[in-house]
């Protein structure tokens, strides 16, 4: 079963939201038009990402209902091997919407045993936007786009391995 958001995380989230609201109030007092435009943009953004939020809600539900820690261990856990890297890599490339909308699902999978390196790989490969590739080719050329995508994929794996090593190395001293 997935991990519910603990009270501590909820409290931190509320503090973060409170700080952002304070920034808005401050901006409103100094430059009203900036605060109003920012709020209008944020509402538009929320409206735009609403379908993604619904998709993520469904995925978290599926994760809670169907995905058991054993499945996570086999497919994206410590012993998942090449399959784990591929799942994280392809999952990251195919995932849509803003990155922050995926944190809850990744947290859930992390609690079930997903490797830190694979979470990093998933997040990094979100940088490769398949639907936007034709536009990138239009602006920068096909060869450039291909080389960049290959390097980004390669560095996502290097980054995942490095991050896991860094976090593992520092953990015992905490």
């Amino acid at each position, binding site marked *: *079963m*997935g991990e*519910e*958001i603990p009270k501590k*995380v*909820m409290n931190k*989230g*509320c503090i*973060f*939201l409170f700080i*952002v609201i304070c*920034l*808005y109030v401050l*901006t409103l007092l100094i430059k009203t038009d*900036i*605060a109003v*435009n*920012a*709020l*209008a*943009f*944020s509402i538009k953004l*929320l409206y735009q990402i609403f379908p993604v*939020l619904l998709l993520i*809600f469904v995925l*978290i*539900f599926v994760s*809670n*209902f169907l995905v058991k820690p054993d499945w996570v261990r086999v497919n994206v856990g410590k012993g998942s091997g090449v399959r784990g890297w591929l799942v994280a890599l392809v999952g990251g490339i195919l995932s849509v919407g*803003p990155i*922050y*909308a995926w*944190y*809850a699902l*990744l*947290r*859930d999978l*992390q609690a079930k045993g997903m490797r830190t390196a694979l*979470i*990093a790989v998933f*997040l*990094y490969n979100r*940088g490769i*936007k398949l639907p*936007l590739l034709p536009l*990138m080719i239009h*602006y*920068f050329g096909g*060869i*450039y786009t291909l*080389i*960049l995508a290959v*390097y*980004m994929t390669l*560095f996502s794996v290097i*980054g995942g391995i*490095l*991050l896991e090593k860094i*976090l593992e190395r*520092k953990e015992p001293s905490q």
Partner: protein
Amino acid sequence: MRKIKPKTQSELLISSTKKTVSMFVGMLPILLGVILLTGLILEILPVDKVSDWFGQNILFDSLIGATLGSISAGHPLTSYVLGGELLTQGISLVAVTALLVSWVTVGSIQFPAEAIMLGRRFALYRNLLCFIFSILIAVLTVTTMQLLG
């Protein structure tokens, strides 16, 4: 020892729904905070004037490109348009590539949310690595392009 009775499908369905709703409600303040912060940063950041910041040398420009990409939170399409504009103004491809890569991989605005949800050290080191990688990838991409002619 007390034996735990296995859950029936309907019990599992109800508990999964409850858990999902609880997770989602817990995530809402973070999500709203990031969305509001994104709107504010985009309004404050003078994206149309960034070309003035470049033009020192390739390394410095790459650092500026990577930094600018890191603090930006708009749609990746904006980075393509901005990158294309910078290229026509004579800014190096290395700097523009660093901007493009860091734009989609480093999340300064999302950092508080990432730190709360996935751990502060995870978020800190991941974003730091992504920042360094954006410059490395930029140099490697442009070098490879030059080698290929």
